């Protein structure tokens, strides 16, 4: 028995030595965005390097658009500059299809990943990026103001209810706006909100033959509703407001409701940062009775570029950073409320995590988004608030600029839609989608 133990111990020791020798002096360069969860991970990497002493980590933290440009340049030329990339649900299916990413093999308990998120990061059943955190969008509201308006927020509100509540909650003399929504131009800014909202009104970016649909009544209804609501109940200068501006407005009590990323929840209930922390309620994004809600689906995920020379070490790192063990590590150091949300089924089954006030609503919101059938009518594309084709970034940003100018009052709804239709038609024809 003693000799068996000795042999096992020696064997384990040799295996560990071999494993660390295999990664001796391996340096992984990880490109990432600057958000709270990613910064937290950088502080916790001792846990990874202690278990993998041969692997060193270099971080490249950049602004989202700069990162996207650099990572795209690196991956399309197979530069090998980065070993691990932070990318989203927009890039993953496009890059996975082109063979620019390595299929992931080291992900801990793949079947535990939330199906909607996993689906958005897979191509033909193969996982090309492992979710670091996932998010949808939902409605955050002030319970005290709702009560004052004599209304009760339903679990699944309609747009009509939201509009009525927003108008009743508005008290501009006291600096309270009934609703705060994104207006800043950008495919990931106002178009994330408007794209998801348009789905609930039955609109779509393209029909089955890739013809743009801004000339259809569903888009007119979406945009007119948004503009009227913001005019009556939105904050001044809303065409410049994105996530950060609306977060600050909500935290300081200047918004009755805010429909935005589920990731905002931890910020609005943090009593250190939010003056309204005790009065915040959460509910699903609204619908218009057509069977689709106006919520999006997004995930920041870790992927490995095909040009890397350190694929094995990179697989190990991605496996660690997106594992259940990592979630527990964050919980032990910073509490369950700070765990990266929206990735694993087991997290939402954890009784400790269920105590977090926005946990259930986040899960329900993520589960109600379907990137493969985003809207009421059939579409030829994947993506809820975006269209997973390379041309979308340019088109989405331009259409976002047009709609932002409609919100600023510089263009009418009809003219804005005409411009969006004409621009998108030209781009899609140029790109060969429309013959």
């Amino acid at each position, binding site marked *: 028995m003693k000799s068996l133990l000795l042999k096992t111990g020696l064997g384990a020791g040799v295996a560990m030595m071999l494993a660390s020798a295999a990664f001796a002096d391996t340096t992984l*360069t990880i*490109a990432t*965005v*600057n*958000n*709270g969860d990613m*910064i937290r991970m950088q502080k916790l990497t001792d846990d990874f390097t202690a278990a993998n002493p041969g692997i060193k980590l*270099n*971080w*490249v*933290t*950049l*602004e*989202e658009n*700069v990162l996207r*440009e*650099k990572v795209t*340049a690196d991956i399309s*030329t197979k*530069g090998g*500059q*980065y070993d691990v990339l932070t990318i989203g649900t927009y890039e993953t299916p496009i890059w996975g299809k082109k063979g620019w990413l390595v299929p992931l093999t080291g992900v801990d308990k793949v079947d535990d990943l939330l199906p909607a998120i996993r689906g958005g990061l897979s191509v033909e059943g193969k996982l090309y990026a492992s979710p670091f955190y996932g998010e949808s969008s939902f409605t955050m509201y002030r319970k005290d103001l709702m009560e004052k308006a004599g209304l009760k927020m339903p679990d699944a509100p309609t747009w009509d209810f939201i509009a009525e509540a927003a108008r009743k909650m508005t008290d501009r003399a006291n600096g309270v706006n009934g609703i705060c929504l994104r207006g800043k131009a950008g495919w*990931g800014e106002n178009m994330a909100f408007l794209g998801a909202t348009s789905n609930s009104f039955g609109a779509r970016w393209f029909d089955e033959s890739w013809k743009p649909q801004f000339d259809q009544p569903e888009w007119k209804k979406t945009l007119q509703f948004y503009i009227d609501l913001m005019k009556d109940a939105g904050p001044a200068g809303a065409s410049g407001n994105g*996530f*950060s*501006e609306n*977060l*600050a*407005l909500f*935290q*300081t009590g200047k918004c009755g409701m805010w429909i935005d*990323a589920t*990731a905002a929840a931890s*910020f609005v209930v943090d009593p250190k*940062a939010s003056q309204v922390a005790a009065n915040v309620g959460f509910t699903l994004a609204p619908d218009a009775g057509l069977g689709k809600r106006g919520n999006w689906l997004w995930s920041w995920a870790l992927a490995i570029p095909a040009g890397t020379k350190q694929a094995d070490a990179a697989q190990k790192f991605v496996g660690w950073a997106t594992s259940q063990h990592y979630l527990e590590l964050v919980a032990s150091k910073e509490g369950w409320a700070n765990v990266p949300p929206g990735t694993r089924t087991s997290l939402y089954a954890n009784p400790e995590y269920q105590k977090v006030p926005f946990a259930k609503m986040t899960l329900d919101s993520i589960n109600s988004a379907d990137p493969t059938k985003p809207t009421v009518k059939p579409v030829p594309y994947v993506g809820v608030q975006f269209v997973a084709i390379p041309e979308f970034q340019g088109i989405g940003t331009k259409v976002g600029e047009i709609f932002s100018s409609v919100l600023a009052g510089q263009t009418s709804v009809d003219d804005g839609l005409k411009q969006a239709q004409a621009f998108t038609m030209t781009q899609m024809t140029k790109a060969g989608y429309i013959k």
Partner: protein
Amino acid sequence: MARQTSPQRKLIVTLIAWTIGILMFWPILWTILTSFKTEQDAVLMPQLFSTGWTFENFGIVQERSDYLRFAMNSIILAFGSTLLGLVFAIPAAWSMAFSPSKRTKDTLLWMLSTKMMPPVGALLPIYLIFKDYHWIDQHIPVLVIMFMLNLPLVIWMLFTYFKEIPVDILEASRMDGAGVWQELTRVLAPMALPGIASTFLLNVILAWNEAFWTLKLTDVHAAPLTVFIASYSSPEGLFWAKLSAASTMAIAPILILGWFSQKQLVRGLTFGAVK
């Protein structure tokens, strides 16, 4: 005899100068003040003043990033590329100013024309060369790019200064038996020193603030303060105050350098302006 300036005229000129000065300094002042605000005040209070001043943002930036590494890279790239630029530009400008040929004017114009092309036009070939030779994130290749970027401007500035030096003085020194080296070091250099100093300072400032190429061609090892600033823009949460703190820390060294050398800068920039 100097022309008399009326007090009203002096007052108006002073007021205009101050207005222009304040307008130009406004974004920097706004950034510096924002860096001392809370994140909420930074977003919600566009006015200059805050309800609660704080040093917290500097603490967070200091804790999260290796500022000294980025600053050291900025020093290496900015000073290195400028010094290298002077090594090439002084002889070039000297020869064009004092021994012009038929093609000097065309050469000068051609050099300036390279600055007219938007940098993005050269991005793809340069990026691919850097990738193939494994130069991305390496100090020397990035330094060379920055040197080439500012070289036309350095030559032009020095050429303008050198042109203001009367050729008669050089001829007189030759009559006294001075060789080319003595002419350069004993006669030309002391006279051109303010011009060289201001060219040096201006180009250090330009290279320090260069963001297009440094963001594209560096990541970790050679990344200067421009990359450090870019890492504080966030897709989520509030970040304006932290971003402003990072920007303030990034511009502080060059601002201090500019402050202390403003006499030389002004002297150099107005060199030869009044004959």
